């Protein structure tokens, strides 16, 4: 059984930090840059981390540690790592990479931007940013639930184990790219971006528009009210919707503290 701190760390690593890829792309922070950027942390069972391989602006996310990253942010203590991503501290981790200042700065900018986007309590003003925030959250939540399954979180693992081959999807009407899905089968899970097109997903949480999505994701709106107003439509049985909703909340509780 893992403790809450460990679940939080794992979610930051594998559900939150990968979002830097999308953010970097949206804002062009990594444009023209090449090199390897790594984030890592000391966990009780050893060092874990992931790295971004940049090739002239094109970013590939790779789980695991790189031999010689150009930029490295390493958290020596798990508590520091968690607090940092919870927004409780601005104290920096051990940084390597001053030799590549452009890349380093791009990394910081991305991190800062991510913090401001995800920590926002009110929706952003412009359409493009709204779209990005919703997409980030959908990727975060889908990867988060999948990660909790891999970690053997009791309630998630139990659900996944009993599940036949099913796909749970999130989408926003009018924004085909603002979507994510989770495939589950007999204990295995896979989070993926975009729409699942092979067949109709077993369950879909469909938002009428970006504002409706943000309302739920930023927790400014009431689930039942949005459903009654048809701004949130559940396609599929409500029992399964409730389950997914619980898991979304579970992920949220770990990464928000």
């Amino acid at each position, binding site marked *: 059984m893992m403790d809450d701190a460990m679940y939080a760390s794992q979610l930051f690593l*594998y559900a939150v930090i*990968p979002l830097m*890829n999308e953010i970097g792309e949206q804002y062009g922070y990594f444009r023209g840059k090449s090199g390897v950027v790594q984030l890592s942390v000391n966990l009780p069972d050893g060092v874990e981390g*992931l790295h971004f391989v940049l090739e002239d602006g094109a970013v590939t*996310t*790779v*789980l695991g540690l790189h031999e010689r990253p150009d930029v490295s942010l390493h958290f020596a203590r798990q508590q520091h790592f968690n607090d940092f991503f919870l927004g409780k501290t601005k104290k920096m981790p051990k940084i390597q990479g001053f030799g590549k200042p452009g890349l380093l700065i791009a990394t910081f900018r991305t991190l800062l931007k991510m913090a401001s986007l995800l920590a926002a309590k009110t929706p952003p003003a412009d359409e493009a940013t709204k779209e990005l925030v919703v997409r980030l959250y959908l990727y975060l939540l*889908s*990867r988060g639930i*999948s*990660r909790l399954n891999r970690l053997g979180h009791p309630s998630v693992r139990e659900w996944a184990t*009993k599940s*036949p*081959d099913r796909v749970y999807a999130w989408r926003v009407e009018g924004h085909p790219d603002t979507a994510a899905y989770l495939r589950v089968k007999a204990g*295995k*899970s*896979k*989070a*993926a*971006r975009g729409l699942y097109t*092979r*067949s*109709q997903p*077993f369950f879909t949480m469909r938002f009428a528009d970006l504002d409706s999505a943000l309302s*739920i994701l930023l*927790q400014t709106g009431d*689930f*039942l009210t949005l*459903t*009654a107003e048809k701004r949130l439509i*559940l*396609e*599929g*049985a*409500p*029992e*399964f*919707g*409730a389950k997914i*909703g*619980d898991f*979304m*909340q579970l992920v*949220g509780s770990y990464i928000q503290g």
Partner: protein
Amino acid sequence: MGIAYTSLDTTKLSTAEVYAHTLCEIAQTDPRIVTLTADLAKSTKIGVFQEHFPDRFVNLGIAEQNMFGIAAGMAACGLIPFTCTFAIFNSCRALDQVHTDICYQNLNVKMIASHAGTSFGQAGSTHHATEDIAIMRTMANLVVLVPADGQEAAAAVRAAIEHQGPVYIRINRGFDQVVYPQGNEDFQIGKANLLKDGSDLCFIACGSAVFSALQAARELEAEGIKARVLDMHSIKPLDKEAIKRAVHDTRRIITAEDHTVVGGLGGAVAEVIAESGMGCAFRRLGIQDTFSPIGYHEDLMSIHGIDTNGLITAAREALKMDFEEDDDWADEV
């Protein structure tokens, strides 16, 4: 982001309300339409009718046999009564009344039998109706309809009113996957709906299995298999011609129903195939002559092999083809 549903909330989200609203619509101009329930107005959604026409609605309390007798008496006097109760009670508990008072006297009673199959999964076998199609199709004079979703149920209601004589309409608890988003204009008693054409095999399905069949056909298409999908909503009278055409065109028939494989849709189709003298591969999907465990409807359909994946597996077996498992289970980052 906490989500808590009360049973009241779920009634607002139900697709079964479609049929109830259709009934209200028709009742506005047809004074013969009246409705009855046995303390299940909320669950069967007929409460919608009660709100609009309280004087044309009767609640008999928990007394199903009485309800069907009363419906017979009303029909004998020229009204068109719609009874609404769970399919298990319609087909088992009150069967003597259905048989003797309604079918034998060929009275114009329309029976809405809800929570059919294992759709009321959590309630267990006391509330599952997994024999009712078999039972009802043996009743002479009775038309037996099993619509696939809320819209088709509404079409069935319209057809039932136009038909002179008793009708049994079997629906689920209301959270159906949508098969006819725009409704079903072509609904005809005795005619199956061709939802997808194909020549490799034919799914003949009814009720909640229709969606499974449609989804299975779509996935199989990606693998190059062209499956025909027939929505056999009219169990009695059965569309024998559609079945015979499917046998001739595809040579592989798979029936699927949220019902025992004994005597229901599968049995009815088997009768037609056997009498036709034509050979084909034939498989009945459904509940394999057992009582169902407790669970959510979707999970039970999976356990009984009548969900999308169950039909895909059956189709592959029918075609004797192997496919690679999807081995990539890493999260996309």
